[in-house]
């Protein structure tokens, strides 16, 4: 039966080229023909987005939202009305873009970017994937393989396809790295162009990836396998971005300094919750690396020592309890020590069977924070210790 465009669906035989090829870059307000693969993907994503948007994992933070939306529009002014950015409460380094314009930014990205340019690097990279329809291209080339489903869940950040949340399994975590070598390179380069055109320092692209690679290397191979979907940023990509950066015409960067102040202010008010989320996932080595980096960036040393303490306390490897104690004690010296410092010192002392010390620490905590919501619990620990 000869079939042309009329009986369109029927002509979509298995061949990857059958009327499904997207043509050229995505343009503003683009609506693919209903018969195309792209339309199907977008439809699926639109449906999933309705459920996703109502999820408690989406952070509703108008100030942060406006800020991020602003960066997207600076990078891709013409298509930015088609982009819907969601901030997701997941402490891993990731961002993703779906073919229908849904962009996810995970809090782990905001925690690790050192400045606005590095944050913009990732957003630009994702926008490049979107503009060049990489997910469609990859779809077409993998759709006859069993990798396909894994790929799609990666490309869309797992929306509607078994997204695994904080656990960030193989699919979601590797989102930034999920495309083929060539497509990743293309997104790197186009992204860096967007970065430069929007007024950012293109050098930051290489810096960011180098830092992230450092974190991947810090964790042991097994546990970071998930984090990077088994391929951390390759040396050659970092080198490529670095050398390309030098080729752009030089120019002064005052605007960037002002932007960084704003970035820093927003992160300052929020980073502690993000670190706490990361500690909850048991990614201890990665967390210590992140803490060291935050220290270099001069975030509150007392808070950082406290979180180091928490990491050791919960990791509980040999010698960790002593390390936890040291870290908490260092934090305690500062007037900026977080509220729970003495309480957690007490928990450590209790585990080390130093009952006297434990009681002392708990009592200091209660004396300083008489309105603490966990008062009754801490009092019960003191009571228990006195009885034993």
């Amino acid at each position, binding site marked *: 039966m000869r079939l*042309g465009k*009329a*009986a369109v*669906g029927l002509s979509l035989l*298995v061949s990857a080229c059958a009327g499904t090829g997207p043509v050229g870059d995505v343009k503003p307000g683009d609506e693919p023909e209903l018969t195309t693969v792209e339309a199907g993907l*977008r439809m699926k994503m639109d449906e999933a987005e309705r459920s996703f948007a109502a999820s408690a994992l989406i952070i509703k933070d108008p100030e942060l939202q406006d800020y991020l939306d602003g960066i997207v529009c600076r990078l891709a002014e013409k298509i930015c009305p088609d982009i819907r950015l969601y901030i997701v409460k997941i402490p891993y380094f990731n961002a993703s873009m779906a073919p229908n314009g849904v962009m996810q930014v995970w809090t782990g990205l905001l925690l690790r970017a050192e400045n606005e340019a590095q944050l913009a690097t990732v957003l630009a990279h994702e926008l490049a994937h979107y503009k060049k329809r990489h997910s469609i291209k990859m779809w077409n080339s993998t759709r*006859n*393989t069993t990798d396909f489903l894994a790929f799609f869940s990666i490309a869309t950040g797992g929306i509607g396809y078994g997204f695994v949340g904080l656990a960030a399994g193989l699919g979601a975590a590797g989102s930034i790295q999920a495309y083929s070598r060539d497509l990743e390179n293309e997104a790197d380069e186009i992204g860096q162009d967007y970065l430069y055109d929007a007024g950012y320092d293109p050098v930051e692209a290489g810096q960011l990836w180098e830092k992230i690679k450092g974190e991947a290397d810090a964790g042991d191979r097994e546990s970071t396998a998930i984090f990077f979907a088994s391929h951390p940023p390759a040396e050659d990509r970092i080198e490529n971005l670095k050398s390309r950066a030098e080729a752009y015409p030089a120019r002064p960067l005052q605007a960037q300094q002002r932007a960084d102040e704003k970035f820093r202010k927003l992160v300052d008010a929020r980073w502690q919750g993000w670190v706490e989320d990361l500690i909850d996932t048991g990614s201890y080595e990665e967390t210590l690396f992140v803490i060291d980096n935050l220290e270099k960036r001069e975030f509150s040393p007392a808070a950082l020592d406290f979180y180091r303490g928490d990491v050791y306390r919960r990791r509980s490897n040999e010698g960790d309890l002593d390390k936890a104690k040291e870290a908490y004690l260092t934090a305690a010296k500062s007037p900026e020590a977080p509220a729970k410092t003495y309480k957690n010192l007490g928990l450590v002392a209790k585990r080390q069977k130093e009952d006297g010390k434990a009681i002392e620490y708990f009592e200091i905590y209660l004396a300083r924070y008489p309105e603490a919501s966990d008062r009754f619990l801490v009092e019960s620990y003191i009571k228990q210790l006195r009885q034993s």
Partner: protein
Amino acid sequence: MVSACAPTFTESKTASGGSAGTVAATSNGETPSLSDIRDMNEGSAPTIQPAKEVTEGEIGAGNEIRIKMMPGFGKETWLCDADGDCAPVHVNAATNANDISGESKPGTSARPADNIIGDVELSDETLKLVGKKIDGGLNGKKILIMTPDVELSLLTAGGLTEPHALWTSAAKGYVTEFMAQYFTDMGYGVAIHSDDAQLVSTEIAQDLIDLHEDVGKSIFLYQYNTLFQLPTKKDGSFNWKLGKTAQELKKAYGADLGVFVYMRDSYSSGSRVAAQFLAAAILGVGIQGGQQVGFISLVDLETGNILWYNRLVSGGGDLRTFEPAFDATENLLEDIPL
């Protein structure tokens, strides 16, 4: 009407305790089927003979076929150009190797094309019901059609499913239109949910649709006499709910009853593949091999109770084109206690 080769099994469940009876009463207790209603109303719309004729497969670059639904279970076929201008058209079948005469003739046959796939537009009468509070209909006879949760996919050679926007859109159109006409012709006041109208928030409506998916899957798996049946259901008691949030729909649309449809189906190269029922299909990410899984619930919007539920397990039932979609909708609505 030739449906696909494999049979369709439906098996409906009704809530006991007569709760279905209190809301909807038909005079002789026997609900007319979709075909019955069609027979009674067919042809009530004036048919036009379109001046223009095209051959399937040769409609011209940039053009597309659209199916405009008409009252009386009718339809018009339109040819629309790239600017969106549409005109009624008569579509002839292309040369068919299976021509009855045994000869293969080049060029156009005078036979109208069967089963054209095109995007579906609701009839003007039905469009008036979209996103509006119910006007008319007796108490107890007001029904809201929720946006059908339908997804049709192409089954690729690798055994994977690729969501297909056109097929999905067409299927939603057919199911919505057939149900709207069916209920209207039976004397019900009808509304069709639309997110754009915002008579309820997107979140509430989506929440109920998502919950219906989970409840429907639970009924599918645990109510029926299969390997997975929950022992407490063995006595046949049917007691499932969406809960009081359904009242939001009642308030917004003035409806007593709601109809929720869920359907997933995949097609291989344009023809149905004989289905193999596998319970995992409705749980997993990809539906295995050309299967159709669907269910429908009739919900009392005051209590949120499911009054009646029907599930489809099938190898047949193409939702992409008019007549097979009619058959599939009829199967879905079989025994609905209205």
